[in-house]
């Protein structure tokens, strides 16, 4: 007898439907899985056999063939255990014929018949919805991930027996309650608030400008100046994530198995801080099956590189292309996958090896040659991609205790949201979202400079010896400042402020 069910496997970030066909026929008892299964899928034989037996069902003593179609698709992971097991039970005539053609089964089986959670449920469900499936049965452990998928009736199962009972009308499977994303995103609590930062007026302002226009920013200062503290506050002032952005980011996290079981969706902007010993594969992505790297986990969020000069050169240089293109294609023998990697890069570094060059609080003991060598660790082209560069110095004790509290993150975030909205409306026809992503073409359309501004720019270009790239960087930042002030055109004071944030080579 033949049974046919639908399972899902993950290819890169997208779910792919897999038709699981099970056939029992007379002959010597055997169990074969065909259709390009990987090791985890092949091993499901043993899990399925024990799970069926331990769920009070009979494993057919017949010749069993399981075909996974399409045959040319490499199937990965243990998520196909469930459709295989259900198919076997059905094919051996152990439950009533019921139409399950529009139901998707995803889940890994344990030997005792319980259903375990798998990674990548969210992208699989998104694909299933797109492919027109109306019902899905997923592991109970992944219930959270189903909460945001509209239009699919998602039920969760703890074990195989429950599923059999459900189909025979002996029991029910709980349906996943749908949640409203907006309600959740409004109630986010952040651990760090920008009002905790004392003094550092320039840094706070620069931070707001950077976040408003999605500009990359680098903080330079002595140890203990509060660079890390400032960087940690960035997520709290970043604009709210739209549902689409959240889904995109969650897909990546789900595929990488980095989604926590309490949160079904990544509703806070990711803030990723790889240690400087991380390899370029860990950062960019890779491995045998081309897994997403840290920069993709930071998609729609912040990639914070603390002590940038300590990262290996190769790692830093590998960031150049994704910073420009906002996607990364990870190519390996088995697969070539395009992962989104649109992140705001925040870097911090000391001005010199001892850290105190130019600081009021300490004394620098480095020679000029040492400083030059240290700075050279971060290449010019990478520095060129940092739109804003500011220096921070440590705050004196008096300032720590006396200062009146500055604005809190929520106030700043509201402004940032407004500024981002302006940008989104402006770039409606273009495929970019923020000022930082503007190319020369966009600059010529959206950043026309008045005669007065042009004059300032010319003087700056000549007096401050700016490069052509620095010029467009300054204009981009000026555009953001103008947006912050709700100004249609870039005014001279916007341009001048942007000039103050320019990165400076020593």
């Amino acid at each position, binding site marked *: 007898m033949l049974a046919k069910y639908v399972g899902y496997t993950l290819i890169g970030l997208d779910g792919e439907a897999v038709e699981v066909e099970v056939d029992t026929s007379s002959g010597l008892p055997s169990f074969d899985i065909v259709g390009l299964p990987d090791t985890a899928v092949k091993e499901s034989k043993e899990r399925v056999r024990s799970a069926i037996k331990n769920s009070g069902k009979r494993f057919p003593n017949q010749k069993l063939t399981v075909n996974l179609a399409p045959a040319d698709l490499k199937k990965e992971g243990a998520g196909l255990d469930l459709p295989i097991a259900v198919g076997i039970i059905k094919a051996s005539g152990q439950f009533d014929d019921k139409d399950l053609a529009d139901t998707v089964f995803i889940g890994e089986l344990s030997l005792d018949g319980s259903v375990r959670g798998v990674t990548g449920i969210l992208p699989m469900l998104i694909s299933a919805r797109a492919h027109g499936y109306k019902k899905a049965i997923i592991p109970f452990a992944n219930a959270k991930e189903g909460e945001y998928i509209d239009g699919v009736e998602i039920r969760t199962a703890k074990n195989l027996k429950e599923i059999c009972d459900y189909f025979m009308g002996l029991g029910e499977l709980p349906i996943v309650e749908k949640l409203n994303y907006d309600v959740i995103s409004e109630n986010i609590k952040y651990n760090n608030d920008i009002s905790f930062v004392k003094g550092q007026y320039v840094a706070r302002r620069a931070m707001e400008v950077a976040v408003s226009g999605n500009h990359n920013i680098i903080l330079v200062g002595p140890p203990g100046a509060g660079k890390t503290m400032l960087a940690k506050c960035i997520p709290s002032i970043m604009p709210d994530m739209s549902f689409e952005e959240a889904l995109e980011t969650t897909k990546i996290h789900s595929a990488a198995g980095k989604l926590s079981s309490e949160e079904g969706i990544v509703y806070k902007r990711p803030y990723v801080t790889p240690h400087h010993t991380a390899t370029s594969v860990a950062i960019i992505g890779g491995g045998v099956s081309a897994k997403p790297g840290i920069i993709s986990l930071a998609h729609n969020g912040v990639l914070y590189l603390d002590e940038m000069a300590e990262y290996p050169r190769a790692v830093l240089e590998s960031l150049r292309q994704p910073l420009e293109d906002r996607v990364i294609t990870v190519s390996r023998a088995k697969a070539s996958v395009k992962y989104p990697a649109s992140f705001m890069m925040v870097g911090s570094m000391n001005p010199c090896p001892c850290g105190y060059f130019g600081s009021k609080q300490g004394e620098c003991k480095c020679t000029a040659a040492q400083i030059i060598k240290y700075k050279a660790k971060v290449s010019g082209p990478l520095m060129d991609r940092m739109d804003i560069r500011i220096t921070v110095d440590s705050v004196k004790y008096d300032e720590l205790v006396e200062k009146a509290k500055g604005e809190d993150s929520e106030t700043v975030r509201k402004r940032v949201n407004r500024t981002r909205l302006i940008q989104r409306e402006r770039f409606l026809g273009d495929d970019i979202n923020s000022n930082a992503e503007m190319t020369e073409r966009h600059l010529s359309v959206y950043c026309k400079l008045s005669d007065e501004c042009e004059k300032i720019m010319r003087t700056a270009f000549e007096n401050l010896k700016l490069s052509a790239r620095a010029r467009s960087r300054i204009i981009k930042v000026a555009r953001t400042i103008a947006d912050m002030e709700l100004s249609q055109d870039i005014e001279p004071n916007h341009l001048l402020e942007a*000039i103050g944030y320019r990165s400076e080579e020593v």
Partner: protein
Amino acid sequence: MRVLSRDEKAIIFLDGMEYIEYKHKKAIIELFSRPSQIFDDNRLIDGYLQSVNKGEVAKTLLKAIANEDFVEEVIASNLRGATDVITLVSNSYPTLLKQTPTPPLVLYARGNVELLSKDKFAIVGSRKTLLQYAKRAEDISSELSSNGVVIVTGIASGADTSAIKGGLKSGNVISVFAGEVGKAYPATANDLSNKIIENGGLIISEYPCGSVPKVYSYPVRNRIIAGLSLGVLIVSGNLTSGTRYTADYALDYGREVFCLPYGIGTSGGEICNKLIKSGAVMVETATEIADYLSFELKVESEPAIVLTEKEKTLYKLIKQGFSSTDSLAENSNMLIFEIISTLGMLELKGLIVKDPIGNYSARK
């Protein structure tokens, strides 16, 4: 290269004989009324060298003198890379340097040799110079050099570089190398040395082409820096710094020694404080040096640039020494973005400069 006189050729040739010590070279020149006579009279040289037990040297030297092609070759190779040359018998040989006990026989030069006849003042210090001291050195150098005083220094990073940078605008700067004039050492200073030439400055050295600076060439070089100058400003240096040689030479030659003062616990300037204790003149500005050495400085006029109220406020604060944007924010009652854009305007108007670590200071 201009046509050299026979006297000059004689000295340059003798200078190229590395196996003869300086004192003997000098003695040989002084044997004759005209240096060119060394090509004519062997007996005197032989006699002198025999008398100081340098028989072997005498043989080699006399053989070399006899070979005219060799002599020309030595002269030509010595002069490679130099655009001019000044020998002990040249009229343009700097008087102050000539008065020292050990004036260099030859000064190989690249650039504008006319600077040698002007008033000169040395600014030296160690490679490890704190930023604010380096800046002060640059300011002093800039102010003196723009008033016609030629700044004499080395080529190392730190204080020397600041002194050169200060002098570049007017071109009144002489860098004394410890090796051949054609190549800066370290090589990273090549850019700077080219700039000196482009701006009408001068590079000199007592070493002919092919000489690489040795550890001991630096103290020896420092006697030229001190010897050329009316006074020496010591910017920085710890007690073992090579700068102390320059100060010592200056004292020996009777030149005035000036020092920047250092605070308690501020390292990098021990030599300055030590010299001040033993009688050096403590200075902080170019005016003080100028007063002491009777240089004439033009009176600094207030900038004729029109400033807005906000710009005036900030410019005043910066002149008072508030350098970081944060400190300006605390003392000015202005909003931070107003401050940043106003600073940008002041910078464009050329009134203030931003240093690599983001602090502002009034431009001199």
